[in-house]
């Protein structure tokens, strides 16, 4: 079974369209190699249909800063490349994290769990 890929904004959909779905979202903002790498990891970690995965998860990579919705921008401010933002199902921002190069699948799993409440 192929690993799930993250949704790429604005290539695949607009961010508004993505956020309209009833899911926990992890948005990786940036187009750098590291941002792409993190988005792929987030995609892998989001592919869960058991043990906590009942709350659906979605990994999103926003490759263009302009694609960030004004509401989200107002809430999180500047987003250096790469920045990871988690949102609850209702769209509430849980965390915005700047990558220090040490973030791995375990951290992403933790962030998804945190947003799943």
């Amino acid at each position, binding site marked *: 079974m192929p690993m799930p890929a993250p949704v790429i904004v604005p290539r695949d959909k607009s961010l508004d369209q993505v956020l309209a779905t009833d899911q926990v979202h992890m948005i990786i903002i940036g187009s750098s190699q590291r941002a792409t790498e993190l988005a792929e990891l987030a995609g*892998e970690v989001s592919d869960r249909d058991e*043990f906590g995965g009942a709350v659906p998860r979605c990994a999103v990579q926003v490759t263009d800063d302009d694609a960030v919705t004004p509401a989200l921008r107002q809430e999180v401010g500047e987003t250096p490349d790469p920045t990871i933002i988690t949102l609850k199902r209702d769209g509430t921002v849980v965390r915005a994290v700047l990558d220090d190069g040490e973030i791995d699948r375990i951290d992403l799993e933790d962030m998804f769990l945190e947003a799943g409440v």
Partner: protein
Amino acid sequence: MKLRLIAAALLLATSALAQSPLNDVQFKWGNGQQNGFQRKTTPEIDRYDSLAINVDKQKFLTDAGAQLGNGTQTPSDLETELSILGSFLKQVGAYHAALLNTVASVAKQNAANPGAQLSMVDAMSSDPQLAQARAGFRSGLADLKKLKTIDPQTYAAVEQSFGSSSAYVSAANAIENRLNQLSATLQQNAAATGALGLTATIVPPDAAARPLHLPNYDQVAVSSTIAVPNYIPVVDARTQREITAAEDFRDVAKSLTQVSAQFQASMKELQTSLDTLRTSLKTQVLEVQLNSLIQQVRSSARTDLGPVLTDATAARDLVQQLNSTNLTIDGTTDAQRLLNVANSMNTTAQALLDASKGIPDDLNKLADDTETAVRNTADATLSQSEAMVRQAASDFLAKQTFFITLANNLMSLGQLLAADSRLALSADRLAAAARNLDANTDYSTTLDLRTIPGDVHVRDNIVVQAALYRRDANGQLTQVSTDSQAFVVQRYNIFPDSVRGGLIFAEPRSKIDRDISYQPVPALGYYWRTGFRGHPAWNAMSPSFGITMALLDFSDANTMELGFAGGISIFRDLAWVGYGRNLQAKANYFYVGTNPLLLVKLFQNGGLR
């Protein structure tokens, strides 16, 4: 189905988690078994049973390895890793259980009310118990990050598993593999640096504790004959002790406000011996002279007398201790007086032993230092002091044999009264029984109650002690953990106790010549008891029935009056009551009684066990 598979994987991995190594010791006896040491329970064990003490070797070595660590106060990486993996698995397990509960609860509600159809996703987002378990799981994940530096390989394996479709099962499998590897390492560590000690001790409520034999751990002798159940009361060493105590206490009972005349006489003799010793050694004079010397040295302008002052003070303190030592019989009750006498004897004996060891050395050193001071600067007072202390040291050496003999006699007298369980239950005995750990030896052992030498009575305690030691390069042992488990010896159905010695107070119930009320007399009790499996409270109360026999004195006309009575007793024959007949005086009597030796020992041991 998937949730069940996850549960199985987690269970498998969690089973490899570490616990206290002494919990890997299992006790197994005829009527039960118990894992680990549980201080709160005292199981009964049949008098003719065997107690198997099984040690799960692999698990023990793993857990011992974890506890022994690297021999420092700082936890080793191995310990930290084990702790992280263990904590993570527990948190995953708790999260999994909470999820199951939430799913089951929603499914049940939906089945009961198909119209409502609660959202599983909403429930999982909002269930407070699940949220709590999720928080715990997240803290487990945070701990897991510490592995990144300690064990990058395991961390990578676990981290990778979070990218798979069955992340937690894969993570649990990776952790299980690592725990198995850790177990092997821990077992090697334990074998290299650990030792296990096991001892068994019989602790009767009314006598001193005695060490028991555990094969492969000690050389304590066992009885050459195997005990078999008997149904006739026998006279044994305890009976003799009890009847002797009852006779001694008869006088006490006659005059409850003072210690018996015989006892006082013995005490007086001992005190006289002490006084004689002091006189012959002139210790009172010596103390005065040493005090005078100390004053002279202090007031002297000389600066080289520091060692003389130190030696003289040390010698004076020891002599002062000897002079102030006295046997005391204070106390508001007889039991207290007896205990005080016992303690006083021990203290006095110890003071004498200290003095016999210390005083000659102290005095000789004082004389040497004084001689040096005299040699440096001629001083008449110091010369006189030197001669005096040399003479005193010589006197001590000449009298030392008598001195030590007297001390030892006092010590044994004191111990006779205050026999306790310190030696048999000591940490030293446990350490002496310790065996070095290795991967090939079986550490299990057995206590066969049938081969215990000497008296074994129902309601005696058997205490099994265990300790794990860290062994350094020189073979020195340091205790890392210790625990103990008590069992109580029991028989079942109807069985006899050994013949008991007691002090009864006989109240005539027929017309007799003399005016007697509750006459105290030593008595022998032939008692049978009943014991029931599964009724520990009844068995602890030990209700017994039987006959008592006493030499009474109701009449001036008879030189010998034998009384026979039927009676009952409770609390291991501590309290007696019954009714009988004085055969010669032809008079009936009622009696109440007690077992004085048991009574006093109960004071010492802190109550009924």
